[in-house]
């Protein structure tokens, strides 16, 4: 989890100003965070009207556990799982990439996933770009794409999750080799 403080107030000239304090310990109490906000603001000429604690779930840390440039051979069945918000990849028969988010409640409206390929030749006509659970609102697993062509060697899949109000941005790279 990534925690930050949003300190809203006014400048000495009366204009609105917002200061964001990042890298805050998510285990700190609200009282401690209020004191931290005051300590930083005491170094400024701003007055404070509001201090907001913002907690964002971190998929970045999850992705960081995933080996960079994970090499998946076409035809392999490889499962790499990272617990907590689980990010796993499964390559079955060189045709599927399954991204599983387990234990999280991510709705379709929260973010989008972008997949890129290294060359135009490897840009498949993706089917099932991603799909949701049967209830249509909660992702328990995300079926990212299915390659319809047999040869997807050389394809580099970059999964980029943009930052949302709830989640940090995250990136994972998968390379399909012979």
């Amino acid at each position, binding site marked *: 989890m990534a925690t930050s403080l949003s300190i809203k107030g006014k400048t000495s000239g009366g204009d609105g100003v917002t200061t964001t304090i990042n*890298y805050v*310990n*998510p285990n700190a109490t609200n009282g401690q965070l209020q004191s*931290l906000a005051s*300590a*930083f603001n005491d*170094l400024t000429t*701003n007055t404070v009207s509001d201090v907001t604690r913002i907690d964002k779930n971190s998929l970045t840390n999850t992705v960081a556990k995933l080996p960079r440039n994970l090499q998946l051979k076409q035809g392999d069945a490889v499962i790499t799982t990272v617990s907590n918000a689980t990010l796993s990849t499964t390559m079955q028969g060189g045709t599927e990439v399954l991204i599983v988010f387990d234990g999280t409640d991510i709705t379709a409206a929260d973010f989008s996933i972008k997949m890129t390929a290294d060359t135009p030749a490897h840009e498949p006509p993706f089917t099932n770009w991603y799909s949701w659970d049967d209830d249509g609102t909660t992702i328990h697993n995300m079926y990212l794409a299915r390659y319809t062509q047999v040869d997807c060697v050389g394809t580099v899949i970059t999964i980029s999750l943009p930052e949302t109000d709830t989640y940090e941005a995250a990136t994972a790279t998968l390379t399909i080799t012979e």
Partner: protein
Amino acid sequence: MADIVTQDSTLIFDLMFVDGDTRTQKLKNPKATITEQEITELNAFIQANNLVVGDKYGATFGKIAKVTRRNETVTKLDIN
């Protein structure tokens, strides 16, 4: 109309973590005079209460490594 001149000032903290990484924290509109003691006290407060952590696993806060004041003068030119 005459040129419009504004002054912006930002305090830039280099936060250093025990793994050697640094992260930047910016503070707008700092006071004209900030003493070394004030920074020392802030650093001690953060350390004593473990209020800052890095964005990597195990990135314990080390210290405020550097504080820089950046002043900018922005002039909107009257081109009429």
